[in-house]
């Protein structure tokens, strides 16, 4: 059994919303749920009763019928709450009992030192004024509204204004290149474009005017450009109206109570796949599924309350931006940070977290690694008295990083959460009723019947590919421009008919926690043994001096199994991979993993291929070391590293041995 990193606090567990919901559910179904395992078993087995109970318990602002809860039993086609109607924006903007209308809804901090606070009443008024303006421009439910936006309050205001009308929102961050933005928005044909026209990152002010001009020119569907902040670009295409946000929303706000309710599956957000295999998928998420899943994750798994303050390090181009937004439905103030978390130095964000009394801090393993590599001692930067949970996602948080957080930052529950764009939520989450096991996600998401698919079949525990076997509300409602559902089927169901196949290789433990081992398609098979790349990373990243690592399988006719492991490493600044360090890495893998995990080649590189969403792309590296062209260079944030891999002498595809060549 994995060592416990932190046991649950009995008082916290007793007063948690998860416990309150479990007791409520016990009253409804007439049997006790003494622990999370029993609650989740019921929620998966009788998912209709679970979701209905949760909707009742959460007291969301809804209308229509709760019955039927779900039509159909197939994950791919089941529809939740066909008779229920709601308005996502009203659920986030409405006054909440016990929540101060003049208290902060959004707090902005920037790397330039700006601080702004917007209270709930002001946010409501501004968002509904945006809705009024959009309505005047003829925007209707189902129209697409797109944004090129910084992580700033005005982006959230206009998102909520759009959602209030039933428009479908899609946003990207300023660091996405023009071609990549067009590759996404051209599919959607938005009628309105909201845009920041400049941004500051790492001390450098950059103009987005050229990009906005190009977007307007290349998106003929856009009738209205609204500049969120910054100069109004000159020379825009004819026929497009241009306004500054403050002028655009200078109107009488719509009445909150007069907002129309839309069907549960009404398209709310469009998120994008990374596009490593072609044009990015436009993944459409419904208003009801998004709201329900987020509120469940916030209130039950994170125990978020109006007294909390949430910060999740994200951009408008990542699903965690949408996820944090929904925290307003719980009345939790959200901190937005606009800029680099490491400028002018790596302590800047930590100071902000301390000053703003953030209680739930969401980050990524990369940020934890940055702090560690920079020699930052968070304990010396602040006391973090309010901090009660640390969340991490985006990639795998390894055991040694748990230790570092506990020893150098604060020993609070670590929620190593995992899910993603495809479900606009998580399969693995925190849980106030359960211990934190070192290196593991605390628990599976309530009501999502997650299993592993491995020989001989579906299992509740063990190592295998993550699948979900029951319908869940936050499944995408469809993929844009996929009228027959062929791409939707190919993406999630073609591999295993009837099962949502997520593409992650995971270990579901017997004690209820979970550990992601990497992407399924990154799994290596060495001498007959299946190895998840993360099995190597957990060892290698604990070795001093190693900042990043990526393991891929390379075909090798000389090896008994026909292939070998290539390990790419990025070392701390100024370090060179010498023989001593190479052998140290190999020895650690041999002892802490197994001799089969020892790479044949370890190569130092300046960077590892990352998708535009910031995820490491083992696939791109694997293609290169096997002599194949990567599928789509434009889908990578740093395609130049592919050239480095191509030219690296140690990474060339191996030739047969001399004796074999002669044959």
């Amino acid at each position, binding site marked *: 059994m994995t060592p416990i990193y932190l046991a649950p606090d009995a008082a916290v567990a007793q007063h948690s919303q998860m416990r309150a919901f479990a007791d409520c559910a016990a009253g409804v179904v007439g049997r006790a749920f003494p622990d999370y395992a029993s609650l989740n078993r019921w929620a998966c087995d009788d998912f209709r009763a679970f979701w209905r109970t949760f909707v009742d318990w959460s007291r969301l602002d809804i209308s229509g019928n709760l019955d039927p809860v779900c039509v159909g039993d197939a994950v791919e086609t089941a529809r939740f709450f066909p008779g229920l109607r709601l308005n996502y924006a009203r659920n986030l903007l409405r006054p909440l009992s016990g929540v101060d209308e003049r208290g902060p809804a959004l707090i902005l901090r920037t790397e330039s030192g700006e601080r702004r606070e917007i209270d709930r009443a002001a946010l409501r008024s501004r968002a509904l004024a945006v809705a009024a303006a959009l309505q005047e421009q003829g925007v209707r439910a189902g129209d697409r509204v797109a944004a090129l936006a910084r992580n700033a309050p005005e982006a959230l205001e206009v998102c909520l204004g759009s959602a209030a009308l039933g428009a479908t929102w899609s946003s990207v961050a300023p660091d996405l290149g023009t071609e990549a933005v067009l590759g996404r928005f051209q599919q959607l044909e938005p009628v309105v474009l909201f845009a920041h026209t400049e941004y500051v990152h790492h001390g450098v002010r950059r103009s987005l005017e050229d990009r906005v001009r190009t977007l307007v020119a290349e998106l003929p569907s856009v009738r209205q450009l609204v500049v969120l902040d910054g100069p109004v670009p000159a020379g825009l295409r004819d026929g497009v109206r241009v306004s500054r946000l403050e002028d655009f929303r200078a109107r009488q706000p719509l009445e909150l109570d007069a907002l129309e309710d839309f069907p549960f599956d009404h398209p709310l957000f469009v998120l994008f796949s990374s596009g490593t295999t072609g044009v990015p998928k436009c993944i459409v998420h419904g208003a009801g599924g998004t709201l329900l899943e987020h509120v469940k994750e916030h209130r039950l798994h994170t125990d978020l309350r109006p007294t909390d303050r949430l910060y999740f390090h994200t951009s408008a181009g990542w699903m965690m931006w949408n996820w944090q937004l929904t925290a307003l439905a719980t009345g939790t103030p959200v901190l937005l940070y606009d800029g680099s978390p490491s400028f002018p130095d790596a302590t800047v964000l930590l100071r902000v977290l301390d000053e703003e009394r953030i209680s739930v801090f969401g980050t990524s393993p990369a940020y934890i690694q940055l702090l560690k590599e920079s020699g930052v001692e968070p304990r010396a930067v602040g006391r973090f008295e309010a901090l009660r949970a640390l969340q991490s996602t985006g990639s795998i948080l390894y055991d040694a990083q748990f230790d570092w957080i506990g020893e150098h930052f604060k020993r609070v529950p670590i929620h190593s959460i995992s899910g993603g764009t495809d479900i606009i939520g998580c399969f693995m989450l925190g849980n106030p009723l359960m211990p934190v096991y070192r290196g593991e996600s605390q628990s599976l998401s309530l009501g999502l019947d997650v299993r592993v698919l491995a020989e001989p079949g579906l299992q509740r525990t063990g190592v295998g590919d993550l699948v979900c076997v029951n319908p869940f509300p936050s499944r995408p409602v469809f993929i844009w421009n996929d009228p027959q559902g062929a791409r939707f089927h190919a993406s999630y169901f073609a591999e295993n008919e009837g099962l949502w196949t997520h593409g992650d290789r995971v270990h579901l433990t017997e004690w209820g926690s979970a550990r992601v081992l990497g992407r399924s398609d990154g799994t290596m098979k060495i001498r007959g043994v299946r190895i998840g790349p993360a099995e190597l990373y957990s060892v290698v990243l604990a070795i001093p001096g190693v900042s990043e690592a990526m393991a891929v399988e390379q075909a090798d006719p000389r090896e008994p199994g026909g292939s070998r492991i290539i390990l790419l490493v990025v070392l701390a600044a100024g370090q060179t991979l010498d023989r001593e360090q190479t*052998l140290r890495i*190999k*020895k650690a893998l*041999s002892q802490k993993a197994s*001799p089969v995990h*020892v790479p044949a080649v370890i190569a130092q590189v300046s960077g590892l291929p990352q998708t535009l969403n910031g995820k490491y792309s083992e696939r791109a590296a694997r293609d290169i070391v096997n002599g194949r062209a990567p599928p789509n260079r434009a889908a990578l944030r740093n395609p130049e590293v592919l050239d480095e891999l191509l030219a690296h002498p140690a990474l060339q595809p191996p030739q047969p*041995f*001399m*004796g074999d060549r*002669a044959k």
Partner: protein
Amino acid sequence: MQPSDIRRLVIDWLDDNYHFGEAEALIGDDEDKSFLRNGVLDSLGFVKLILHLEDACNVQIDRKDVSPANFDSLLKVVTYVSAQLTKART
């Protein structure tokens, strides 16, 4: 290629693949210590070592010569490969 080069080649290969910096210590002073009996190499490792020597030393090793008599210690490997290289030169 001198016997000392061949010796270094074998030590480095053992370190790269099996012993990660400890091959020399494992073999110790007795360079005729049996690889098989002392956990320096297993039978699969033998095959890989021979393939590696062929490639790195540019020699063809007759499979009839592949036996513990020629390869079961550092000394035996160095002696055998040196002899093959000399034979190839003459």
